[in-house]
């Protein structure tokens, strides 16, 4: 088969071991972490990161980037929220609008990058600013807090049976995420879109000379990313108490970092969506888990940075070894 290499050298496997190690450490040092409700709340806060990361995997594989997903996500959530609150828009329609809005911003990014040739960093930095501006405009009055269970999109992500302390809560959102990961892994490996996404990152020139309309596929990578930012907006609105304009900047970096930890090549051309899932989980564990063991949340940033350096160094070492073997 294609994957002759042993599972041990697979970066995704190494990352999985890191996850298990982290969970074990947390469980030993924090009795609180051992509770089901802690795990549930941790999962809650992982969904939007996972969804953003799935999407941004595609631009990253093309050797690009999308910095607009964080502020975009907040922006879409606010637009949908206002529609629901002030215009009595059905929740389902609001959700569709989130996704549609994300797709439009993705299309703008893709057109700027794939058709007009702007550097991805710059193009998406601009849309990042624009979406942040729109957030502030949309938000005329403060967003009402929404803590009651079952409110807003909450039920999509956590099915609750019964009431009170003994209620049984199922993390449906996690299953949804896993299903989407598997779907996009298939898309990446077995459809034209996925294959050309890899080819753009690996050798765009060669793909063009093969007679493929590279522009369309390049744009599509960003549209897919935007759609997932829209889905992330739904998840974000479902879990945070208040969606505030002006937030969201920086969240994209957690997702992008997770993708790299999951083994996407920093120079494009190689990656997997399953890798993204495990990679982003490391980030989430560091982000939400460290307070359980008594470490300040600031430590998350530092440790995440170090983990990321490690992951990228594995990639660099891999490339160098391959170059040597030639």
């Amino acid at each position, binding site marked *: *088969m*294609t994957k002759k290499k042993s599972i041990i050298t697979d970066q995704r496997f190494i990352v999985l071991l890191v996850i298990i190690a982290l969970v074990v450490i947390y469980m030993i040092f924090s009795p609180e972490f051992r509770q089901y409700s802690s795990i549930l709340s941790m999962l809650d806060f992982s969904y939007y990161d996972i969804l953003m990361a799935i999407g941004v995997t595609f631009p990253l594989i093309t050797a690009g980037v999308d910095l607009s997903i964080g502020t975009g996500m907040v922006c879409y959530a606010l637009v949908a929220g206002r529609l629901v609150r002030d215009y009595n828009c059905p929740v389902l329609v609001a959700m569709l609008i989130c996704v549609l809005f994300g797709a439009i911003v993705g299309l703008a990014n893709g057109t700027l990058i794939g058709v007009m040739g702007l550097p991805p960093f710059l193009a998406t930095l601009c849309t990042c600013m624009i979406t942040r501006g729109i957030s502030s405009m949309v938000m005329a009055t403060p967003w009402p807090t929404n803590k009651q269970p079952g409110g807003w999109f909450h039920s999509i992500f956590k099915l609750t049976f019964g009431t009170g302390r003994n209620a049984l809560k199922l993390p449906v959102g996690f299953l949804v995420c896993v299903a989407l990961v598997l779907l996009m892994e298939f898309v990446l490996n*077995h*459809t*034209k879109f996925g*294959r050309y996404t*890899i*080819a753009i*990152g*690996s*050798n765009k*020139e*060669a*793909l063009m*000379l*093969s*007679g*493929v309309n590279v522009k369309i596929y390049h744009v599509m990578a960003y549209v897919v990313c935007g759609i997932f930012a829209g889905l992330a907006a739904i998840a974000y609105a479902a879990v945070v108490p208040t969606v505030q304009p002006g937030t969201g900047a920086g969240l994209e970096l957690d997702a992008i970092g997770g993708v790299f930890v999951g083994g996407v*090549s920093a120079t494009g*051309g*190689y990656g997997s969506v399953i890798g993204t899932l495990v990679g982003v989980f490391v980030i989430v564990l560091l982000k939400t888990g460290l307070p359980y063991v008594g470490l300040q949340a600031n430590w998350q940033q530092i440790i995440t940075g170090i983990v990321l350096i490690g992951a990228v160094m594995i990639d660099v070492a891999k490339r160098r070894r*391959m170059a040597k*073997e*030639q």
Partner: protein
Amino acid sequence: MADAILTMEEIEKSFPGVHALDHVHFDVRRGEVHALMGENGAGKSTLMKVLTGIYTKDYGTITYEGKEVSFNNTREAQDAGIVIVHQELNMIGDLTVAQNIFIGREFMKGFKIDDKKMIEESKKLFDELKIDINPRDKMSDLTVGKQQMCEIAKAISHQAKVIIFDEPSAALTEKEIEDLFTIIRDLREKGMAIVYISHRMDEIKVITDRVTVMRDGGYVGTLITKDCTKEDIINMMVGRVIYEDPKTESKVPKDAPVVLKVEHLNAGRMVQDVSFELRKGEILGFSGLMGAGRTETARALFGADPKTSGDIYINGEKVTINSPQDAVKHGIGYLSEDRKRYGIVVQKTITENSTMATLEKYMSGIFINKSEEKKITEHYIEELATKTPSADQLVVNLSGGNQQKVVIAKWLVRDCDILIFDEPTRGIDVGAKNEIYKLMNRLASEGKSIIMISSEMTEILRMSDRIVVMCEGKKTGELDISEATQEKIMNKATRDIA
């Protein structure tokens, strides 16, 4: 010529300032391997680019399978059955062999790419070509030779009738070349028409049926390979051009001190056991065809690329050069063939460029002493006759020749005694060329020692006191200017008939 599948007649192509193709004729028959030869810049690649639609011709006709054709892009040429196997391979390293072969025309099963069928089809292709490659392997895991086989398989899968090989053997090992020839012979049997571009004389004799020679964008002639000798081909390649005032003898005294001695320099495949000496006041020409390893030798000497072994002596003393800093410290300056990338910063002024390698000399504390900097720059503007309104002019506004002078000034400011000029006049017009030549001669007469890498025969014969000839990473000869002729140089620059 009834059996010619492809005929190109009276092909004309001009680029601004260059007459790239001048009434060129070329034809290839079914079941023949036809070599296309010529010096660097003779127009071989341009001709093939016109054929495959990368360039549009200005004039002339291309007849293919009895019909006049004109392709607008490689895709159209490909669909018609004319495929080019490039010297630089166009492969997507992160995809598998099968995925590469069928890129852009994947077999589909609904939304899903039918990888299974692509692997099967690739296997069939490889069986047909008797090549042992696993279609499931990742492209970047294959050797260059195997990658090239994949390119050929891809070409054939396009139902190719004409395959053009552009210097296919340049990166291959002996064994891989043999395999390649087996495949080419096989394709010839099957009636395919093959165009083979190469500099390697021995290969031309072994594999081709006819040879067409081009020179300076013009058509020289076509020979039947088995009836001609290497000398015949070389004579056609170099022609009988009268070169502008060639140097007849060296004025450098025989006992001039050796300022630089390089012994057994090795650096990868492109630099193998190269030894030479450079005397004070001498211009040492490095001649050879594209890919002979001249620039690589210079870069290894200069410390820009790592070397595996070799000793360097400067003024009789053994020195260690592991980086360009080391080389500069020992008084070696390198003027790159790619000025814009390595030589100058075009968006900066002449002054800033001139003192770039020497800035520490013009510092007062932590500040740059602007007036000192300007003084030395103006001195060299005058000295080198650089045409500019002032030292504050941005380099981007200068002509190619004057830009080159700024690079020279940079190394003179640095007090370099050994200057390596890599293609010093590339992209420079004739008038400016003469000025650069004069300047080089003057520098040499003032006691600087110069290594000049050049692909232009005129330049080599006009400037050099001695000539080192390289071929495929090895030094193949050394000639004094008094005995050098273009035939002798070309003979050493091409591989001997095995």
